């Protein structure tokens, strides 16, 4: 199998598995326990915190461990909203193509009386800093813009947006789930106040994540109870998982340059190959894009059937097709960059892993071409387009 769905989840690295298994065996104590065996677990926990902090240029005290990216996103937004509310600030700026962990939390906040502005992301899938600045109002409590989009891989001008937020004294959160471990992220240089990340997106375990909150930002609990995580996130700490996440993150960050050097040309080769398919189009900016992401729309076909046939050929990929989600609408991300429903249904995301080879790339290109051609072969939509009944969109 060529696993080309690393944006959905990744395989744990060997080093991360080793960290986890060894702690499960030797250091299973509760870090809140006083005896030496418990304190050993506490040490492992705090070492992980240091490693995670270092990987993003933060202070260990600024790292809160969560059960994943979604929890971190929820807690970041709820916390910022609470802080804003206290000062009478009830306006939040975000973008149209955030992850649902952001969008659905924003919706909840709207129901609680917050006003939310979703900025456009334009055809290239990139937010414009000047539009962020223009949207800031007297009562803006928070700007939240994802670091890299999970579907189309576009990297946002986080540093510039951060600088604008600093200038206006507005809190800035970024959902960096698709960025951390994949491209350089530094909370200090990038002017970030709050940042969410998820372990399983960078070869750490599922069910782990973290929230960075700059010193001085008071978090609100999502989970009440014990005094773990400075009282801001109750629940016995998943020390083996957290430490494994730290191991994976450290590895990934140390390896960033090699990762980019390896993946970028393969990504670009696949992009070039798929562009040869008539009436296809790449989704999202080609340059400002994580090294792993390829996303296309193919006119006249539907994404789920494309996926399933690629699966038969041993390629695991993803689609923004409505049919993959059980909803009627295709991906809100593709709609946000201006793809109309008709073609948004026919999308394909390939998110490469470090083990991809040049031969894999060739095989992927050929397979996608074959499957698209095959499906178009009995697509009434395609037939009509070719027959000149209706115009090609792509």
């Amino acid at each position, binding site marked *: 199998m060529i696993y080309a769905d690393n944006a959905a989840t990744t395989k744990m690295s060997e080093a991360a598995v080793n960290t986890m298994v060894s702690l499960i065996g030797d250091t299973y104590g509760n870090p809140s326990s006083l005896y030496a065996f418990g304190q050993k677990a506490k040490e492992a926990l705090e070492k992980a915190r240091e490693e995670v902090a270092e990987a993003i240029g933060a202070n260990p005290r600024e790292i809160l461990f969560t059960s994943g990216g979604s929890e971190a996103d929820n807690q970041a937004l709820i916390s910022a909203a609470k802080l804003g509310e206290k000062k009478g600030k009830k306006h939040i700026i975000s973008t149209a193509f955030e992850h649902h962990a952001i969008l659905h939390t924003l919706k909840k906040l709207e129901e609680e009386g917050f006003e939310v502005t979703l900025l456009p992301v334009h055809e290239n899938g990139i937010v414009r800093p000047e539009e962020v600045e223009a949207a800031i109002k007297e009562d803006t409590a928070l700007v939240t813009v994802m670091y890299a989009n999970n579907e189309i891989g576009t990297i946002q001008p986080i540093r510039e947006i951060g600088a604008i937020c600093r200038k206006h004294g507005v809190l800035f959160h970024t959902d960096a789930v698709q960025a951390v471990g994949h491209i350089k992220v530094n909370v200090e240089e990038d002017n970030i106040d709050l940042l969410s990340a998820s372990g399983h997106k960078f070869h750490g375990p599922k069910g782990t994540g973290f929230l960075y909150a700059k010193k001085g930002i008071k978090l609100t609990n999502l989970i009440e109870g014990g005094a773990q995580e400075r009282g801001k996130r109750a629940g016995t700490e998943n020390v083996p998982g957290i430490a494994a996440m730290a191991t994976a993150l450290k590895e990934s960050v140390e390896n960033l340059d090699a990762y980019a050097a390896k993946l970028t040309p393969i990504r670009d080769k696949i992009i070039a190959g798929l562009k040869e398919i008539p009436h296809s189009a790449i989704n999202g900016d080609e340059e400002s894009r994580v090294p792993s992401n390829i996303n296309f729309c193919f006119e006249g076909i*539907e994404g789920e059937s494309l996926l399933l*046939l690629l699966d038969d050929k041993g390629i695991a990929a993803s689609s923004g*097709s409505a*049919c993959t989600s059980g909803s009627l609408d295709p991906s809100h991300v593709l709609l946000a960059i201006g793809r109309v429903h008709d073609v948004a249904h026919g999308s394909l995301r390939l998110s490469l892993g470090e083990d991809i080879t040049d031969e894999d790339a060739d095989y992927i290109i050929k397979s996608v071409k074959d499957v698209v051609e095959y499906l178009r072969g009995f*697509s*009434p*939509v395609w*037939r009509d387009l070719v027959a000149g009944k209706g115009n090609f969109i792509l």
Partner: protein
Amino acid sequence: MALYSEKVMDHFRNPRNVGVLENANGIGEVGNAKCGDIMKMYLKIENDIIEDVKFETFGCGSAIASSSMATELIKGKPLEEAKKLTNKAVAEALDGLPDYKMHCSVLAQEAIEAAIDDYNSRK
């Protein structure tokens, strides 16, 4: 617990009666690209018998499989029987569809109905 039953996957991978029927005397098209599903049914009806049938589908795995199965269920059958084909029968013949995919079987039923209507209107 796989996404689809074996039957669905079989009809998806090897759709029966796929393509265009040049001498069709009843053609129906339902769905729209905006929703992500379009089915087109071509019928060749003679002496109130579905002599031949073909389909074209733009849609997901279960849409393709539903069209394929629907053609199988009516091929060679009397028109009266074809008229009575329900989406449930299509789904059952496929050993079931996930709840949120039942609309695919509905489309198949509707596509046949539309093709028969077309045939009737041509008479």
